[in-house]
């Protein structure tokens, strides 16, 4: 018995919609098994992970805080991946967005007026974009593999932030704690509603999703992105430049990651610390694929992954489970998403040694 793939004559519309849901279902089944193995009641554990974050006003606000960066970064990355530019350094661009965006309240704390916040947001986006420029430049100029360079830059950005908050940017009145001074009131991204902590980062995320959805489906640039990614040769014949596309994709996704970074520090953290991200930049890779590289899909995928972060925290408090389980869930989910995507292009057949039998996925 073995598995064989049989190419479909055309993409399966059914599976291109269903595959993320099948993947989520499989993740839940395996998650239940995992919980049973470690001796927890699967139903209770899954409830705490995936339902309880939706049951109170407080947790819905937290969900918006956690999902906004995932959606912002994931939307940018899906555009990158669509055009075959493998930016996996969004975590570094997030950090640099946070760092550059924090310059105003930390280096010039005496400048306090209503221009500070817009300036911070612009600087944060510029910081993320500038950091993403490096792998794009090295790729287009020297043909250097962007996967490795963008990833290496993540470590460099994290060390740079660590140096800043322990060295020159450490709070002078902070009793030697490794953190910057707290942002003044003009540097804080306000809350959207009075009922809780959710800040304008969530609004930026929705605007980014809408903007990218229009860009991809309604503009020539969107067409160019799809062509360059799927058939670069055809794209070149059509007069599209792959180098320009690389810059476009990296700068845009870098700017969005930078926006997520500056929103996080000015909205949620309100100062700089040695670590400002629980791996948003990497989790956003999962968000992009789970959302099928489609901005609207990314919106829902980002919310789901945000739920898993919150559920992980809840499970830690209620069940005493390690928060590391969240990362296992997230990794597993991406595996299932990629596996299920095969059904879009292929039928999977179980073949016995003698004769073909049992076909799965007949749509």
């Amino acid at each position: 018995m073995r598995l064989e793939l049989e190419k479909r004559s055309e993409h399966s519309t059914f599976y291109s919609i269903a595959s993320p849901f099948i993947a989520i279902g499989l993740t839940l089944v395996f998650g239940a098994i995992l919980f049973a193995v470690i001796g927890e009641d699967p139903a209770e554990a899954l409830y705490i992970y995936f339902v309880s974050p939706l049951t109170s006003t407080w947790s819905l606000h937290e969900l918006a805080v956690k999902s906004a960066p995932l959606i912002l970064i994931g939307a940018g990355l899906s555009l990158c991946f669509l055009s075959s530019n493998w930016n996996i350094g969004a975590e570094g661009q997030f950090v640099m967005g946070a760092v550059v965006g924090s310059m105003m309240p930390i280096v010039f704390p005496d400048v306090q007026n209503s221009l500070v916040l817009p300036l911070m947001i612009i600087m944060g986006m510029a910081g993320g974009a500038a950091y993403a420029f490096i792998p794009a430049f090295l790729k287009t100029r020297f043909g250097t593999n962007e996967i490795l360079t963008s990833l290496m830059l993540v470590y460099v950005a994290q060390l740079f932030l660590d140096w800043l908050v322990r060295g020159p940017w450490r709070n002078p009145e902070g009793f030697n704690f490794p953190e910057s001074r707290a942002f003044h009131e003009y540097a804080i991204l306000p809350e959207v509603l009075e009922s809780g902590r959710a800040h304008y980062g969530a609004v930026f995320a929705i605007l980014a999703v809408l903007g990218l959805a229009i860009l991809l489906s309604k503009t020539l640039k969107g067409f160019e992105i799809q062509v360059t990614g799927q058939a670069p040769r055809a794209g070149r014949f059509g007069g599209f430049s792959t180098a320009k596309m690389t810059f476009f994709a990296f700068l845009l996704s870098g700017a969005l990651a930078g926006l997520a970074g500056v929103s996080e520090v000015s909205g949620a953290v309100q100062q700089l610390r040695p670590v400002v991200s629980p791996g948003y930049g990497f989790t956003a890779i999962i968000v992009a694929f789970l959302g099928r590289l489609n901005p609207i899909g990314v919106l829902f995928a980002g919310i789901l992954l945000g739920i898993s972060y919150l559920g992980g925290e809840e499970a830690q408090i209620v069940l005493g489970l390690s928060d590391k389980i969240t990362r296992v869930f997230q990794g597993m989910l991406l595996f299932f998403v990629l596996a299920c995507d095969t059904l879009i292009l292929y039928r999977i057949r179980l073949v016995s040694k003698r004769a073909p039998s049992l076909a799965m996925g007949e749509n």
Partner: protein
Amino acid sequence: MELAVAVIITIVTAATPLLIAATGELVVERSGVLNLGVEGMMVIGAVVAFAIAHGTGSPYMGIIGGIAAGVFLSLLFGFLTLTLATNQVATGLALTLLGLGLSGAIGEPYVGLPGTKLQPIEIPLLADIPFFGPVFFKQDIIVYVSFALVAGVAWFLFRTRSGLTLRSVGDSQTSAHTLGIPVIRIRYLAVMFGGACAGLAGAQLSLAYTPQWVENMTAGRGWIALALVVFASWRPLRVIAGAYLFGAVTIGQLHAQALGFGIPSQLLSSLPYLATIAVLVIISRDRRLTLVNTPASLGKPFVPDR
């Protein structure tokens, strides 16, 4: 002299995991498969090796466990990319994310526990040679394995028929398939070999380099190993040069941190990563060289026509 020998011994220790993981990945890529999950397999190898060595008291059992864990993860990758023909870049990333998450969960009870250090084995006679003796012949078993591994892989790839078959699969999957070569089966074997190497490299980190478990203790070494394969332009013997160069950079910056010099430690810590970028840029500048050496089918999924 004493000091120089001591420093060089640590360079060998720091270079060994890179050498092993890169050699494994080199074989994988020669078969036409790009597995970006080296970091994930390595970190799982590290945590499983530590846990088993801690449980059994034997670092050698730990090594076996680390290798097995690496192979297990590589089979997951193989099932997706080879059987289900998924995108290799995305699946490799998934493997790294899963490996990092899983290792954190498995390793939680082991954080802060004392490790079981792998003891050096002296090779009789050779160990008495001045300088070379202590540097190369008073090391632990994984260092010796790393030497044998590179030599073995170089011989296998370029001096045996099976090696030629493996390279042909990587250079032209459709021609190889037409000739009746079992492309998928060969790739499975290559991917499993890469997993074993990454697992062993991880075991070296948690049993020999720093005998303890720290979350994310691979710290990007799996990615540096991937870069070394490009640096070596897919030739095993050149991996040695790359791995030892990076071992030297790593150890050099550690000594510089100890001595101070007034340079921020974070800048020194980022040197291996910056060096990786620099090396990649230098290598990729010569596009012809890269094109000639890159396995032509690298990263392309293969679904046989039936």
